[in-house]
């Protein structure tokens, strides 16, 4: 092992802690040192709970010494996107609107992580109220991509992805309303899972759009994401137990939706995706083209659902304190007030159509595969970028290949699949059948060693 220990996966660290070869205090101290060294530049964390984390780590070490293990996350440093309640700690949502807020109790997902032995090192920065894809509209300073600090880490869970990539925490919990776990995972080179809609409780999590919000993990491997998902679902495996059974790659049938998905792709992203498919085929997987006929209606449907749902949640506070919002987020919330009820209802119908079409596309295959992002991480603050000689909106591009699965509720995961010539990561997205997130994870575990460069 040449990597520092705090850069290893949970699956590697947990046995070391359980065997007494590594103390949680040492591991937590190493993560806190990375935060201390790099957070001023990267702005990954809004709140660092150093004393509390070290106290928890000491407790975990004492328990280990006494022969007790709380669960599969015993002594592992984890961070929470700052939309998720942790008792006694502010939940800022990266907004001045929430100044003075302190969570009275843990969100259910936080409580389950705590019960499984996690050590909480802090709350991570995000696009204000998760209402954006770049993590630059935040009251706590734009989050920076560690691969190139002039670039966005993606969003809205940008701080979570940056934190696990730089050793500030071993894993993080984020939320995904249009891609906010998968987008930063792709832009930074992490694994990000959006489970099936409704599987993980969203209580105690500041909502963006309740019918589209998902809670999920960002991690260093599919196995880690799988473990965190099980813990948050309330089915934590016993410490040391096996849970990640990868599918055999041979015979795996993967559907590739090309119309719409491949219409706008950066050349290098297209190249990494094509290489990944070639490696998977070489390993024995079969790829077949599939169609989602109304995929091009996704953005329209999404806007007419997400905007009014966000406006409803923010109505009172935006009337009372509009100046406390960052300007772009305020305007997007205001937009939602103009969506007519009949158009919201039309969007609901469109959502049903898309859901049925994705179900059909999955009927004859084990999973769908597509790029997570059509572009590499964009420059911080850029409203547009050039793709194949055309100027495109960054926001539209960032959401283009992920938001459809928030509308349909299908589970989706992003795993790294190499980098551009400039060293910017690319993401490989895998989508599974609804209510079978574990089958998706088994496919992702099979694909991971073939596509991760």
């Amino acid at each position, binding site marked *: 092992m040449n990597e520092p220990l705090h850069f290893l996966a949970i699956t590697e660290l947990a046995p070391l802690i359980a065997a007494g070869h590594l103390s949680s205090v040492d591991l937590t101290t190493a993560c806190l040192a990375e935060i201390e060294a790099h957070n001023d530049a990267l702005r990954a964390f809004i709140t660092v709970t150093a004393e509390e984390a070290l106290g928890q780590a000491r407790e975990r070490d004492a328990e280990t010494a006494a022969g007790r293990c709380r669960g599969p996350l015993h002594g592992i440093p984890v961070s929470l996107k700052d939309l998720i309640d942790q008792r006694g700690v502010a939940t800022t949502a990266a907004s001045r609107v929430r100044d003075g807020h302190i969570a009275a109790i843990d969100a259910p997902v936080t409580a389950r992580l705590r019960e499984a032995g996690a050590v909480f090192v802090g709350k991570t920065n995000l696009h204000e109220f998760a209402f954006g894809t770049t993590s630059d509209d935040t009251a706590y300073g734009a989050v920076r991509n560690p691969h190139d600090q002039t670039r966005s880490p993606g969003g809205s869970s940008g701080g979570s992805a940056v934190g696990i990539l730089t050793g500030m925490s071993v894993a993080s919990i984020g939320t995904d309303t249009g891609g906010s776990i998968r987008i930063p995972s792709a832009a930074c080179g992490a694994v990000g899972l959006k489970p099936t809609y409704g599987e993980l409780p969203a209580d105690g999590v500041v909502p963006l759009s309740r019918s589209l919000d998902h809670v999920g993990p960002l991690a260093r491997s599919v196995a880690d994401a799988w473990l965190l998902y099980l813990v948050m679902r309330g089915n934590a495996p016993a410490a040391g137990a096996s849970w990640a059974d990868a599918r055999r790659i041979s015979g795996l049938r993967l559907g590739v939706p090309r*119309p*719409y998905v491949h219409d706008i792709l950066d050349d290098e992203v297209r190249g990494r995706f094509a290489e990944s498919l070639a490696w998977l085929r070489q390993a024995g997987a079969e790829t077949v083209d599939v169609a989602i*006929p*109304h*995929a*091009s*209606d996704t*953005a*329209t*449907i999404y*806007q*007419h659902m997400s*905007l009014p749902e966000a406006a409803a949640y923010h109505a009172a506070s935006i009337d009372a304190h509009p100046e406390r919002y960052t*300007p772009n987020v305020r*305007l*997007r919330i*205001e*937009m939602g007030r*103009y*969506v*007519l009820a009949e*158009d919201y209802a*039309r*969007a609901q*119908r*469109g959502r049903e*159509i898309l859901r049925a079409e994705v179900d059909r596309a999955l009927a004859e295959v084990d999973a769908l595969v597509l790029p997570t992002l059509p572009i590499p991480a964009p420059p911080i603050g850029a409203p547009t970028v050039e793709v194949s000689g055309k100027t495109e909106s960054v926001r539209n591009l960032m959401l283009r290949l992920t938001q459809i699965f928030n509308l349909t509720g299908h589970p989706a995961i992003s795993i790294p699949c190499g980098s551009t010539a400039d060293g910017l990561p690319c993401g490989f997205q895998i989508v599974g059948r609804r209510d079978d997130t574990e089958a998706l994870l088994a496919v992702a575990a099979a694909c991971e060693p073939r596509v991760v460069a």
Partner: protein
Amino acid sequence: MSEPLHRDHMTTDEWLAWAGADADTRGLPELKPLIEALAAAQRTLRAADWNEDAAGGGPDAARAENARPGDPDAAESRP
């Protein structure tokens, strides 16, 4: 909101005029470009071929009413 919404069905053009005027009234002129983008999305949404019609007809009437000739957003929305 100084004007009544509409007597029966608000077309996208009528909605755009109302929303833009309301944004001005509320001192939010910077909202108008976003509302114009939303109008394009609304046209696309209303023209979608999966919209239902209580009379049992197809979506042609809605498409004719809402899609403006040469509107690239509406045109690009079709697969």
